[in-house]
């Protein structure tokens, strides 16, 4: 079962995980990742708010394609991806990924793969409102390197 959602509304990560677990009672291992808005930048400024722009249509399509790719690489019983867009504030969840498999190694690998590829392929762009003004977040070379690990 794959459940992919691109939404403006906040979500309750714990409640979503509870609901996901109910769909995979036979899976030995469930790995999840929650990305939250940080209230600071590496460079020191305080972040007041973040706006996530997205490419409607393609965002949904890209996340679905990632989930299909993950399911071809690992024997998954289910995958959940929720990604927000719009205005978010520090401490709010931006993204939730959950993967279920018989064995924990598969669940962990698929979850990390989904996050790494999502970071470099899903069409979302972060704009931060900080104490030093408003600016688009630059793509991270570290994210590119992490995504490279999964290339065939």
């Amino acid at each position, binding site marked *: 079962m794959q459940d992919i959602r691109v939404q403006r509304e906040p979500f309750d990560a714990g409640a979503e995980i509870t609901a996901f677990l109910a769909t995979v009672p036979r899976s030995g291992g469930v790995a999840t990742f929650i*990305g939250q808005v940080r209230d600071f930048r590496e460079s020191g400024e305080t972040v007041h708010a973040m706006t*996530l*722009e*997205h*490419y409607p*249509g*393609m965002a949904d*399509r*890209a996340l679905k394609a990632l989930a299909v790719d993950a399911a071809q690489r690992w024997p998954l019983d289910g995958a959940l991806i929720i*990604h927000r867009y719009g205005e978010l504030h520090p401490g709010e969840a*931006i*993204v939730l990924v959950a993967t279920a498999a018989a064995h924990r190694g598969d669940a962990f690998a698929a979850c990390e793969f989904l*996050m790494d590829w*999502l*970071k*470099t*392929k*899903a*069409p*979302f*762009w*972060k*704009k931060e409102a900080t104490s030093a003004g408003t600016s*688009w*977040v*630059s*793509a*991270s070379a570290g994210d590119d390197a992490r995504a490279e690990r999964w290339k065939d």
Partner: protein
Amino acid sequence: MSLTVLYFAWVKEKVGCGQETLAPPADVATVAGLMDWLSTLSPGHAAAFADRRLIKSAVDQEHVDHGTALGKAREVAFFPPVTGG
């Protein structure tokens, strides 16, 4: 040929709009060619495409390289590297 062109993030801000419907000349055959032509439309377009190395593109909602042929594309998008998640 009518083409929907989309811009996101700072590309959108430089161009000054998020979406336009255009009819590029018949000799615009690739994504790179489309950027060349778009750059002639306004100073904002020119500024957005000044450094192509900063620009990523998608044709009909699939990531593509700049050398990709437009073919029967109906929607082309330009944006900086993604930063979601």
